[in-house]
């Protein structure tokens, strides 16, 4: 049949990882090309290639220095951070959906992003160090707190798929209110403007040093998720079924919840709370490559990167002369997807 040596069984209608990877890489290149050339100052592709030649290969091609600065320091770094954040959020969503056996699970809807925002804002306002590391440390504590809060609330109300989402909504509201409270009472005009950043996300501040935080975190998240890919597959029929397949379920859950909280915290501290990427991307990818996590996790990471870079391009061209918060664009796609998944699960029940 469709069996190849060394490859787990896969029905013929699903895309293989190499094919998907190739398509996604091309899409990522196209999206990135758009991201660096489109903007208030349009930079033709030929000039972008020259900038890359100068910066990456030490060539000495004649380029307008201002446009070179825009391409290299602003747009390319922004696209790289967007791609890492999108990849990370997609991995988080994939892992959470499998662990919680809930098609709607993702960091934003579960309130983890909101918790991370609160933690980061608190660190910022209290002025405990100002670096990206302390900021993401605060975000991690906030994300962990939100995790515990939502888990306890879901369990206390009797557990079940819907309860987790309801608990997530309660958590989101609570932590978003806390964030707004802290930001508005901090009475610093500049910080107050930042509220949009923490609630909706923004790529405006993304620079190359941010990649130094985003990439290692993404690598850790991907590695752990891939290491546990078989375990995530085994969760398909529930926790007891996974345990009877030899999975140390309690340990795997703690490990993966920890990694999702870490990844979410890192992303939130860099680009704010961007919603729905972790929801839309895993579903679309699962539809294309199938549910096996060994394929799904790397594929979702790639697709998440493409989605986020494309959403960023959209956020800059939808309203001329204005940049929408990235979270507005992702929600524009995410909310209908949420509704569709809800509608489909109702039919199945």
């Amino acid at each position, binding site marked *: *049949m469709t069996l190849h040596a060394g490859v787990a069984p896969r029905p013929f209608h699903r895309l293989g990882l190499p094919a998907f990877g190739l398509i996604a890489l091309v899409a990522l290149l196209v999206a990135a090309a758009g991201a660096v050339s489109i903007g208030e100052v349009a930079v033709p592709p030929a000039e972008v290639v020259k900038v890359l030649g100068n910066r990456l290969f030490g060539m000495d091609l004649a380029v307008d220095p201002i446009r070179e600065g825009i391409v290299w320091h602003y747009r390319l770094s922004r696209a790289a951070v967007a791609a890492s954040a999108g990849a990370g959020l997609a991995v988080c969503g994939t892992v959470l959906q499998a662990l919680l056996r809930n098609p709607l699970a993702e960091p934003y809807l579960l309130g983890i992003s909101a918790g991370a925002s609160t933690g980061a804002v608190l660190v910022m306002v209290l002025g405990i160090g100002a670096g990206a590391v302390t900021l993401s440390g605060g975000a991690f504590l906030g994300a962990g707190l939100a995790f515990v809060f939502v888990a306890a609330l879901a369990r206390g109300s009797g557990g079940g798929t819907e309860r987790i989402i309801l608990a997530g909504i309660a958590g989101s509201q609570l932590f978003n209110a806390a964030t707004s409270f802290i930001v508005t009472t901090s009475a610093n005009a500049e910080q107050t403007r930042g509220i949009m950043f923490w609630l909706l996300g923004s790529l405006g501040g993304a620079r190359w040093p941010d990649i130094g935080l985003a990439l290692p975190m993404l690598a850790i998240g991907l590695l752990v998720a891939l290491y546990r890919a078989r375990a995530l597959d085994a969760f398909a029929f529930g926790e007891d079924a996974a345990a009877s397949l*030899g999975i140390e379920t309690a340990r795997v859950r703690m490990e993966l919840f920890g990694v999702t909280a870490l990844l979410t915290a890192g992303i939130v501290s860099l680009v704010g709370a961007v919603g729905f990427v972790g929801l839309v991307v895993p579903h679309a990818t699962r539809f294309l490559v199938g549910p096996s996590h060994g394929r799904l996790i790397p594929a979702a990471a790639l697709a998440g990167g493409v989605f986020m870079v494309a959403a960023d391009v959209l956020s800059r061209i939808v309203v001329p002369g204005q940049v929408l918060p990235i979270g507005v664009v992702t929600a524009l796609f995410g909310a209908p997807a949420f509704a569709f998944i809800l509608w489909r699960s109702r039919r199945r029940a």
Partner: protein
Amino acid sequence: MTLQARDLAWETGGQPIVKGVTLRVPEGRFLGLVGPNGSGKSSLLRLLAGLRRGQGGAVLLDNRPLSTISRREVACRLALVEQQTATEVALTAREVVALGRTPHRGAWETWSAADHAAVAAALKRTGMTDRADQLWSTLSGGERQRVQIARALAQMPRELLLDEPTNHLDIRHQLDLLKLLRGLGTSCIAALHDLNHAVAFCDEIAVIKEGALVAQGRPVDVITADLIRSVFEIAATVSQDPSTGRLRVDFLPD
């Protein structure tokens, strides 16, 4: 005797569910677990599978306490088929069966020829080869049950535990399934509701009432009118066909 329970006790929410059960699983034979609803059959199976940890006594696998063996090692030789199985994941029957190879594969190990052979054999033994590439959601109740048993077989267990495997199946599928289990040659422990099925297919029967083991032995020795009256609180007659030696249980209306 590779799997046994010794004085096993388990309670949840302050309610004792399993009360000091000592049970031996005859090797390579089919042991039926019978008892009224809520008598603790499912809990006992979960304890034997190591999914719950008893507060008293022990489950022994090859004379080692189950609690000291890693989950993965247990899963390589003991498999459980749960009563209710549901998933939202769009898996094919073959992918569900492939899950049974999980304990046999390391995290970075690729799909091997041995894995492929185990899955193919399990599908064949349960008669599901033709349905292998169908999605789980399109299978009937009986087919799903078979796929779960095939998944358990792909684990290559020496002990197979099943919680009411014939539930929700029509009579033909019930009989097919019991025949399949009896022919496996692995030790099977199955919670069963139908006493006539239990006496017809099981090598041994263990009777559970209110969390305690009432009797264990050959069907002909265990299933008597007296036992049925005391355990199930109904009147019944148990007769044996003189020519075939087969037992038959008839329930009497009042």
